[in-house]
């Protein structure tokens, strides 16, 4: 299924089967890329990519103390332990909440702002665009201290709200630039036609523009989710209460223990990886089309 999607995404010859002969016909024989030049480097790189994944899977499934290179006999004791004893169940819930809230907030706020940037000329637009670009250079990690103070002032320390806001804010600039580029790619005349047909601006946007933005919004939204799911320092800094912490913080706790429980660490890592890997498998196609539509080209 993934294979099919990727082939459609590329503007290359549509059906996969007749493609090689067509290529061969077009190119002189001496100039065709030999198959081994594709498969060999790809294979080598795949080994580099997959061995670490296999390694963590292996450690999470084989009994503690085993040195076997295959996870057999298989055990789920590490998962049970990490999920209950090490509270990864709680962390998982918190991370899901943070990820989804960040996704919704980032997409909604960036959609509104991106629409304004794409469709209107207004006084502070240039300043605002400049601010968006400059904010790319402001490292979240370096603003830990003042952000900590702000959330302390707002009495939001130890609540997931602080992390959600911080993640959203640092996702916003890039998301907004991307979305405004996506919107610019939708001809304004389509919207105007809808107004003539009696739609309000909002309705016209909803039925004409929004469907066309789908790949872009999926890319931006999943970006926001994956980033906030993965990000570590804000949660580490703002959440002290163990019941409020997120998965990356939990992983860090496992790693910084005096004697690291490798099986538990591996199982925790798998739990951390599963949602993003699923998200990634779904968005892979949109990621590439979405980016080529709006990311790099102005």
């Amino acid at each position: 299924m993934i294979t099919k999607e990727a082939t459609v995404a590329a503007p290359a010859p549509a059906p996969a089967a007749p493609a090689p002969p067509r290529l061969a016909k077009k190119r002189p024989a001496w100039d065709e890329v030999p198959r081994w030049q594709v498969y060999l480097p790809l294979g080598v790189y795949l080994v580099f990519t997959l061995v670490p994944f296999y390694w963590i899977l292996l450690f999470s499934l084989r009994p503690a103390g085993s040195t076997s290179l295959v996870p057999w006999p298989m055990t789920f004791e590490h998962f049970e332990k990490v999920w209950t004893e090490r509270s990864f169940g709680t962390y998982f819930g918190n991370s899901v909440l943070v990820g989804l809230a960040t996704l919704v907030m980032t997409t909604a706020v960036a959609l509104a702002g991106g629409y304004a940037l794409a469709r209107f000329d207004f006084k502070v637009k240039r300043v605002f665009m400049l601010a968006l670009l400059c904010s790319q250079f402001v490292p979240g990690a370096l603003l830990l201290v003042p952000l900590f103070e702000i959330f302390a002032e707002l009495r939001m320390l130890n609540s997931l709200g602080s992390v959600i806001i911080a993640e959203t804010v640092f996702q916003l600039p890039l998301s907004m630039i991307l979305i405004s580029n996506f919107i610019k790619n939708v001809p304004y005349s389509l919207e105007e036609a809808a107004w003539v047909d009696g739609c309000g601006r909002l309705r016209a946007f909803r039925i004409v523009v929004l469907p066309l933005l789908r790949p872009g919004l999926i890319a931006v939204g999943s970006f926001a989710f994956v980033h906030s799911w993965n990000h570590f320092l804000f949660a580490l800094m703002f959440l002290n209460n163990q019941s409020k912490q997120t998965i990356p913080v939990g992983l860090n706790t496992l790693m910084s223990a005096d004697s690291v429980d490798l099986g538990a660490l591996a199982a925790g890592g798998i739990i951390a990886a599963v949602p993003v890997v699923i998200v990634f498998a779904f968005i892979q196609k949109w990621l590439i089309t979405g980016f080529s539509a709006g990311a790099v080209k102005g």
Partner: protein
Amino acid sequence: MAQAAAVAKPPAPPRRRRASATPRRLPYLLIAPAGLLMLGFIAYPVISVFYYSLQDYNPTKPWRNGYAGFGNFTKIFTDDPVFWDTLVFSAKWVFVEVGLQLLFGLALALIVNQTFVGRGLGRALVFSPWAVSGVLTSAIWVLLYNSQTGITRYLADLGIGSYGTSWLSDTSTVFPAAIVADLWRGVPFFAILILADLQSVSKDLYEAAEVDGAGRLKQFWHITLPHLKDAIILSTLLRAVWEFNNVDLLYTLTGGGPAGETTTLPLYIANTSVESHDFGYASALTTVAFVILLFCSIVYLRLSKFGGDNK
């Protein structure tokens, strides 16, 4: 019910007219949420960092708090060897990491841009580490580098190296070890961006080049690379800033050690604020990091003539 709908309908046209007749206020309303969030949680913190950089400010030693003038900055430049060490390491880290990621990312993008059987699956697999977090990357590589049960043990079984080798705690191997771990996650980022940009190269150009008898290498050099130029400049810059700023991986993988060997400037700042709570000094360091970053970015964009000829 139908009546109510009929009654409700007439007011609609004026609303529409109002919507398109008052775009004056609308854009401001639309950017207001984003603007307010960024003012409150980016602009204000940035300003307060500048303010704190001129203060002695340590919540655990409140009796020493107060205006410090440029004291913090004097200390950074004249009396803090750690700062210079971390600065040098940051430069080394960013340069090697971004350079290798670009190289491998470009190669990978060119490979998976070919038409071959299993392309979709191949792409999904080689890109997958992109989605993995810094902390999880650390967890994975901690397992791989573990001296008792990691890769080195199995290599030693095969007669390569010796038992008990820990690449992360040896000052001579920690740098390449950390580089490889971060490459694992960073290469897909470049590959995805470059692959996306490769989709928009006009096929006609290649066909024309073929008619002129240009080989693959020439086509790459004269068509593909110039087309990718802006994307490469932008992604290397964004990535360099990101690699400089992001402390997740090093914080959890090496903790900046052994012996401060892998401490970047932001990691030093994070440690200064998280561990010693010296917020004033951390703010001054942040200011310096910010200025360095801005300066390097401007120089880079100038030197690379971003958005120059081919637009």
